[in-house]
């Protein structure tokens, strides 16, 4: 039985077409990868600059800690823990610690009770 096969070797046209297709694919993939890597780097750069900005803003603030804020200290002295500064006073606990969702009716009732008692 006769067997037929292709001849070995390729023509110059076949070589250039094959190589051209590979080169085109490599360039397209390379450009795509470059865009991806650049976006990744830009994202990292943005995050770093944003963090630096936030820290800089914070460092420039006159009052940086809530427990050193004179207005807060005054509120404690005058109202939340009269005569002293007691951060977790009972009144502070009830007024400043809120609740969410299905716990809200309970919170309203609790505040009303304290208000009536006061």
């Amino acid at each position, binding site marked *: 039985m*006769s067997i*037929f*096969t292709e001849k070995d070797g390729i023509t110059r046209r*076949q070589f250039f077409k*094959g190589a051209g297709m590979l080169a085109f694919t490599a360039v397209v*993939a390379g450009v795509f990868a470059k865009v991806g890597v650049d*976006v990744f780097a830009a*994202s990292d750069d943005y995050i770093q600059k944003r963090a630096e900005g936030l820290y800089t803003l914070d460092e420039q603030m006159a009052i940086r800690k809530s427990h050193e804020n004179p207005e807060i200290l005054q509120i404690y002295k005058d109202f939340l823990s009269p005569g002293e500064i007691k951060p977790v006073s009972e009144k502070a606990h009830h007024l400043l610690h809120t609740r969410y969702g299905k716990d809200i009716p309970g919170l309203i009732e609790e505040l009303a009770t304290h208000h009536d008692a006061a």
Partner: protein
Amino acid sequence: MSEISGKVLKHDTQTRSMHWVHLIGFLILALTGIAFYWDLIGISNIFGGPANASLVHRWAGVIFTAGPTIYILLNFERFAKFIDTISHFTKDDFAWLKTMGGYIPFIKVDKAPPQDKYNAGQKILGGLIIVGCLLVILTGFPMWLWRHTLPAAFLAMCYNIHFWTAIIMILLICGHFFLAAIHPKSRIEFASMMLDGYVDAEITSHHNEKWFNALQKVE
């Protein structure tokens, strides 16, 4: 009785192996992709649930990319011949397309124009598959690897290109399967890609006349 007898080696072992790897990879990718795009839990469960189906999709994508890449690098000569064939259109190819080679029942053709190793329809399919593969690969990997950093608009574009290219490729492969495995005029070549690589010499002399005339007889 024709004077031509014997067999033609149309697709050698490496080509058939790459075709099998690509076929299996494509089937897994298509099934898992369809499963989690339309949330078809029945298909996802074949791959161990939605999370595993997603993982299988990604690694099947790696095989889908690596298979042809390795083949091309190890078989540049065959690849170059393939690219040359599918990108070389002559008046015979356009004449073939006018009658669709006689594959359409209501277009009567006495004798289709002589064709290369691949007919004009196969050439177009080959080109579309290459472009489709490049698009799904180039949009697929950013969706996996850079999804946390790429701009949302760019990712959305990748998702859309990936989805529509995949849909078109699935339809193309359905057509390819029909013509390669079911249509009585063309399924005679089925074994040349899926099994032993050979096709009848007389059939080749009719279907791929130009290519057949350039072959050499080795025994």
